[in-house]
């Protein structure tokens, strides 16, 4: 238990916001309002919140297909996220990105990614860029547990160590890659030992306890921020739902799901409220405030017009000379 009262309340609010955002997406997707497919992070909120609370405006994150929580915890407005996912005007990516590509550069969110593993080397580059330009800050790449097996992990850990990059990799270990449990995809006995073998500092935290995540993240981030080289934070957790909106999650034993239900990070947090000097009614009030915010944000987003048709053909190229060249006029 390391969070002070106000930090705890803030973390709780972030987790609740993520939770309700994710649950609302399932509803909106069920109503065919959110197109495509969506990966939600319900029960994983403590990782997003516990890491995000230690990040500053100059810090940057890159996340995954299951990244809504990480993005919200970095301070991005849910209004723009809803607009994006509902393909409305005002969406962060003009409706072109959607769930797997939410990006808000102004808040240091350099993108989610639909390709497992691909965000890691890009994040290493953002970190290298900071270092080369002498800019302060930390870069965080969130990955899933299954992503660890992709070659990108190896290439990134090696370069991050070699070049001593201000990069923190946070592994959100929900124990499954789609339907595949870790024992079927991993031959690595101990992930921390593996990561340490690159000379990268690696620690673990209970991913369902926001106190634990926060404590570990604060240490890991401080180390990276101090210029002591890259770090790695492993958080064991569990996802409530199937892999995405197309998956009932039948490959998981019901007892297992039931056991993790007890460890819902919001339940865990509520159980610790008193110890943090917070009261149930305070938390109820936060819940109510978040619910109102969610509803308002959805209403706002639904009231926006569709992303304009013209935007299908913008934003591919940046340079006026390029655009001119395609148009036939050249500088």
């Amino acid at each position, binding site marked *: 238990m390391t969070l002070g009262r106000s930090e705890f309340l803030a973390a709780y609010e972030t987790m609740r916001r993520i939770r309700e955002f994710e649950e609302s997406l399932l509803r909106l997707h069920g109503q065919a309002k959110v197109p495509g*497919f969506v990966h939600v992070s319900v029960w994983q909120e403590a990782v997003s919140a516990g890491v995000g609370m230690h990040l500053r405006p100059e810090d940057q994150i890159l996340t995954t297909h299951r990244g809504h929580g990480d993005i919200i915890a970095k301070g991005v407005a849910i209004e723009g996220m809803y607009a994006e996912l509902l393909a409305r005007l005002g969406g962060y990516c003009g409706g072109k*990105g959607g769930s797997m590509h939410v990006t808000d550069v102004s808040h240091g969110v350099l993108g989610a*990614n639909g*390709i497992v593993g691909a965000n890691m080397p890009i994040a290493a580059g953002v970190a290298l860029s900071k270092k080369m330009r002498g800019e302060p800050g930390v870069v965080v790449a969130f990955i899933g547990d299954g992503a660890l*097996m992709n070659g990108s992990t190896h290439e990134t850990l090696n370069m991050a160590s070699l070049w001593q990059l201000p990069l923190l990799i946070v592994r959100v270990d929900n124990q499954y*890659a789609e339907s595949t449990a870790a024992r079927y995809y991993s031959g690595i006995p101990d992930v921390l030992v593996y990561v340490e073998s690159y000379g990268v500092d690696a620690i673990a935290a209970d991913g369902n306890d926001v106190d634990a995540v926060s404590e570990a993240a604060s240490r890991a981030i401080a180390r990276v921020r101090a210029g002591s080289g890259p770090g790695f934070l492993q958080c064991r957790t569990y996802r409530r739902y199937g892999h995405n909106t197309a998956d009932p999650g039948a*490959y998981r034993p019901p007892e297992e799901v039931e056991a993790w239900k007890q460890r819902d990070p919001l339940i865990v947090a509520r159980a610790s409220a008193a110890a943090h000097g917070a009261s149930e009614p305070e938390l109820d009030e936060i819940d109510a405030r978040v619910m109102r915010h969610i509803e308002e944000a959805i209403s706002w987003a639904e009231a926006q017009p569709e*992303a304009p048709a013209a935007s299908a053909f913008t934003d591919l*190229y940046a340079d006026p000379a390029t655009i001119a060249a395609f148009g036939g006029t050249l500088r």
Partner: protein
Amino acid sequence: MTMLRYRAALNEALREELERDPRVFLIGEDLREPWGGTFRVTQNLSTEFGDERVLNTPISENGFLGVALGCAITGLRPVVEFMHMDFAMMAMDQMTNQVPKIRYMTGGQVSVPLVVRTPGGGYKSSAAQHGQCLEAMFAHLPGWLIAAPSTPADAKGLLKTAIRLDDPVLFMEHKHIYMLNGEVPESEHLVPFGVADVKRAGTDVTIVAWSKMVHFALEAAETLAGEGISAEVIDLRTLVPWDEAAVLESVHKTGRLVIVQEPPERAGFGAEVAAVVAAKGFGDLRTGIIRVAGRNVPLPMAPHLENLVLPQVSWVTDAVRAAVRGADVRRANVRGADVPASSVEVPA
């Protein structure tokens, strides 16, 4: 004949070949029960044939394709799945520099009886990294054979043939037609590579398509018939080799060619068809060759934007009308205002 969905036809092909040949096995992400593949193409197979014949892999596309290649050159017959075709890019060294070249480089000392099954296809609001049809890239790499079936029957028949061939096959399925129903011949249904299927006969214009676009071509042909335009629809079925003879013969008859492809126009496989006909069938052409294709932009998530970027049935009908109107071949200007100028890419 039984009615089967496209994905069930694929499943049946896999089952029959797993049954027939103990050297055949499946390898890819999440193929086993109770999941059976992200698009459920491998449903029940791990239950029926055991986990030894249906391998789940880590998310290591380059690695497990390499593993499959090692198996293929030593007497096994792997059928690989990449969950979405976009992810084949993670395995591109093996896809480019190893699988299609190893037989040639070794002077024929090894053969590569390996199939890569993978679904391409947009129209599902899945954005830029989950909907590409990348067949053109592989068509440019000698060594690959490529199938892109449009119907349940061809899906089954081509997959069975692919598994039996001793050469590497890129087998492009299409996400958007997995649920399409159709009649499928039972058991020994083998469709040969390199033989197109004339899905509809016609006399005024030849429409060439493959995969999902065949259905757009057929819909367009139906509409056009109502206008007195008789369109012949050719489903290539396989792109390498592709049935040049069938297309040239049709163009000889119709004098007009419209090619429909889903992915971005530039340097797509439609260009190859156009180039061959512009060489070998030039004398038969009465008007310029028209390509209907995706615009040269990535796929946007929003469905209404995606529909501006990906071909629509109306684009095909418009193109055919333009082709038929294009009687004056001199400066035919086939990209008139009413034809989607699919190469326009950066409007103001």
